């Protein structure tokens, strides 16, 4: 074999273990559940192979699934919007700060390293019946009895925002940090107010970061089932909870496959649209 041919083969040898892993542990399993979603769950418990449309008919037409899917998308959308409203000024502050930017960013990223389940349950300490907030209100005499503030849609969104905000801040920061600040000065010198300069120059230039952060928040938020279990009430199930129920509790794997693929189709469409217009490079910048 010539030297060139060997040289050309080397990267593929280096790549093959990772590509094999992703192929065998992600892509083949995904294709497998497409097949599985057409199988049928029987009363005896064994799944019958074949081409049955029953699971898809149930997943696509049952109003119960549709309502929870819509509710999931609504919760993810609100979470994303709140993350953007909270995250943008914070990211702007870090990017334009005269102080130690790296330290400020690290501080806001620290919660990212703290366990998701710990951060989620930490709100019980704050909002629970015997939590900090009730304690303060009782002490101040504003209430006589503790109020149950937990286990509703608002606390689910609160938990999700707390979990996802660092993703948003990081992505916006990466975008803002790459903008030449002299552009704003130029706008100012041409007669724009600081606000006009921000709205017409900085904000548009930072939109790719906002979009990347938004995509991450939405997709991660819409795919969660732990937050509703910990911070939500009995009626706050999200779509991933249905998947968990079908697969783990009811052991109805064919239906669970169909439901998973529905979630993948909805969220995957968003990723594909994002990729089409903005590309993956921005997302990787924020993650890397």
């Amino acid at each position: 074999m010539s030297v060139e041919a060997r040289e050309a083969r080397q990267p593929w040898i280096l790549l093959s273990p990772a590509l094999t892993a992703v192929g065998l542990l992600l892509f083949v399993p995904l294709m497998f559940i497409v097949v599985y979603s057409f199988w049928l769950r029987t009363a005896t418990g064994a799944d019958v192979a074949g081409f049955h449309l029953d699971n898809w008919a149930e997943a696509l037409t049952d109003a119960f699934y549709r309502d929870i899917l819509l509710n999931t998308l609504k919760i993810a959308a609100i979470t994303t919007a709140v993350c953007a409203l909270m995250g943008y000024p914070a990211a702007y502050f870090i990017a334009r700060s005269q102080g130690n930017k790296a330290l400020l960013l690290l501080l806001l990223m620290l919660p990212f390293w703290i366990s998701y389940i710990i951060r989620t349950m930490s709100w019980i300490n704050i909002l629970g019946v015997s939590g900090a907030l009730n304690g303060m209100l009782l002490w101040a005499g504003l209430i006589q009895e503790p109020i149950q503030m937990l286990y509703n849609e608002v606390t689910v969104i609160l938990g999700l925002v707390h979990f996802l905000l660092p993703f948003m801040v990081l992505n916006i920061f990466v975008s803002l940090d790459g903008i030449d600040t002299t552009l704003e000065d130029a706008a100012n010198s041409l007669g724009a107010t600081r606000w006009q300069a921000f709205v017409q120059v900085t904000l548009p230039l930072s939109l790719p970061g906002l979009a990347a952060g938004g995509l991450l928040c939405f997709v991660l938020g819409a795919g969660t089932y732990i937050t509703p279990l910990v911070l939500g009430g009995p009626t706050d199930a999200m779509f991933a909870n249905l998947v968990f129920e079908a697969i783990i509790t009811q052991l109805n794997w064919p239906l669970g496959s169909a439901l998973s693929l529905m979630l993948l189709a909805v969220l995957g469409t968003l990723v594909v649209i994002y990729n089409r217009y903005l590309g993956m490079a921005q997302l990787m910048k924020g993650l890397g």
Partner: protein
Amino acid sequence: MNWGWQMIRGYAILVYLFMFLPVAVVVLLSFNASQFGSFPMTGLSLRWFVELAQNDAILRAFRTSVVLGLMTAAISTTLGVLASLALVRYRLPGANMISTLLIAPILVPEVVLAVALLLFLNFLGVNKSFALLLFGHVIFTLPFVILVVQARLVSIRRDVEEAAMSLGASPLQTFFQVTLPLMMPAVLAGALFAFTISFDDITGTLFWKPGGVETVPTQIFAMLRNSISPEINALGTVMIVMTVGLPLLGAAMARSLSRKSGA
């Protein structure tokens, strides 16, 4: 400093408080002497940490998490570093496509990944087991390792290796004596990242874990079913120290390593 900037600063401080207060309360309450995991605090005590150290279920979960995390980190980092080398060092046709394929596991919702892997491996005869957990954690952490390692490999210059080769080192010698030491910070960062993500994972883990086996997050989740106890807060504090302390330590180590190697 105009008032607009002051407002942004005030707002940012509120955002910081929002992120940190709940976590601070977890740490604070873990030192609470009271029976209940709640306010008012009746005094400072380490009793919940002592109870934690004597709780068999938690210790078992801890061991499972550490072993799983270490094995995940070892495998993910090996696969990730090799792939990153190929992506950074060679001009590959379709490199963008390959990158996207390799980070696909984080673009697919974790629940879907969990279901697909569980059903497929079960079909192949691999039941819910430690092996399934390990496969799951590897595939889920691999993209993060690749992103982190790739970002750091870019800064290693090739001419150092070319110099070693031109001075008579074999490709293998060059790799082990020049490239690998220069890569160490990237490798460590990738491994730490994989370990922390694996250690923290609950979404996939709940699908893959066999009955009776718990990792620390699933153990906390199971304990939350009853009520929030001071023990959970103490466990949370230990987790915070591990997942925040370790990466900070790792970052410090990586910095001193790269300073020594002059990169």
